[in-house]
């Protein structure tokens, strides 16, 4: 009888064998697999990409299912609190007024749009490519010290590609960072790795908007002589040729310190963690 068979014959022997297996074979093997996975990450091979997309899809949708009870509980509590709103009639009246105001502003906007198109035609300026919006559902939001992102319910099967802008009501939210078969990951504008070219039309200034990793962003490469004011609107400039120009990003908030030096912060045009549906803008070909 050899040593292994002898060890297996008693409970203590089995435990010792198991521990030896775990320490000497399993842990180094798993560490080896981790390194292998990390190396494969940078190899752009089609089968590897497909396999990774498949795993990502399974995990994303599993996480969505795991989160369903929590989301349901949160949603029910929210709607219950909303039903307890006793000022509903007054709120309705205010909303109706706002709708009327918005309709009139929209009509005015249409007039200016037509005028702008005619002027462009006269001057011979060609429009940037036209975009088609694809409505998608937000499956899950993820935040960690390494990135801020959310998953959406459409992937490469719907011709979604890396870099495409994601908006909600024409407000820029982020861009596609990873595409799987049935889902995609969107890098939010507040992610520390996010950089987008922007324009502040009221001042005629171009700059880069960089996410700070929390829930805001900061302006980079502002010309030194620039002086911004409160509520200056920020739009995407489209100079990178990927993100559509004219998407609303947010507005400037100015704070002055003791030495009257202006510090700028950005009030983004959307509220985090309240996104249900968003649109992916795809360039029409």
């Amino acid at each position, binding site marked *: 009888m050899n040593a292994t068979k002898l060890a297996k014959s008693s409970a203590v022997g089995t435990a010792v064998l198991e521990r030896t297996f775990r320490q000497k074979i399993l842990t180094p093997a798993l560490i080896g697999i981790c390194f292998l996975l990390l190396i494969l990450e940078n190899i752009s091979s089609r089968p590897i990409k497909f396999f990774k997309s498949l795993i990502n899809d399974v995990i994303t949708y599993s996480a969505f299912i795991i989160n369903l009870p929590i989301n349901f509980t949160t949603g029910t509590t929210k709607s219950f609190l909303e039903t307890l709103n006793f000022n509903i009639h007054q709120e309705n009246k205010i909303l109706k007024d706002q709708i009327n105001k918005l309709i009139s502003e929209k009509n005015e906007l249409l007039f200016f749009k037509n005028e702008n198109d005619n002027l462009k035609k006269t001057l011979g300026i060609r429009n940037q490519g036209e975009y088609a919006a694809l409505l998608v559902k937000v499956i899950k939001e993820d935040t960690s010290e390494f990135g801020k*992102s959310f998953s959406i319910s459409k992937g490469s099967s719907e011709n979604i590609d890396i870099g495409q802008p994601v908006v909600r009501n024409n407000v820029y939210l982020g861009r596609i960072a990873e595409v799987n078969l049935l889902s995609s990951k969107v890098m939010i504008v507040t992610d520390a790795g996010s950089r987008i070219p922007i324009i502040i039309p009221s001042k005629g200034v171009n700059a880069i908007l960089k996410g700070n*990793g929390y829930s805001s962003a900061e302006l980079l490469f502002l010309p030194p002589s620039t002086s911004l004011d409160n509520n200056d609107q920020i739009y995407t400039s489209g100079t990178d040729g990927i993100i559509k120009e004219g998407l609303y990003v947010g507005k400037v908030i100015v704070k002055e310190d003791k030495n009257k030096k202006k510090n700028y912060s950005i009030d983004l045009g959307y509220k*985090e963690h309240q996104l249900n549906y968003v649109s992916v803008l795809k360039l029409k070909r």
Partner: protein
Amino acid sequence: MRNFFEKLRFYIPHLLILLVIANDSLLINTWIAPGPIINLKYILLFYFCFYQPDRISVISLFFLGLVFDSLQCTPFGMTSLCFIVVSKLIYFLKKRRTRANFQNEFISFGIVLVTIQILASIIFYYFSKSSLEYSLIIVNTILTLALYPLLRYILQFFCRYQI
């Protein structure tokens, strides 16, 4: 039925860590704090590896890490590697420190957390195309360390009566 509940009880640490990984952004990081400033998963992992090392196997740590990598868009294998190193480091530190008191435990947690953040940052720097925000990692490490005593107390309370 009893057997089922016993099995469920055994896997509570796995479920808890999985829930935290799947809901990291829903918990403290969004409802209480403005960003990713607390690392709940490392606190849970340290606690269970320190007090109940036989309940979490290396294989489960590997798969939990893969789930996290997939959800967070980090390079595949990064968190798995970190989790396995955490468990081995805790085992090593526990063996070295013979006197079991809170002070020693807290120092061990600090060593583990700093090591893991440095390891994760190095892997992320070399294997990811995104850029790193070092201030965010430093804030995350300090606040996670500061929150450990409170969460340890809560976990001990639940472990005494539930798990």
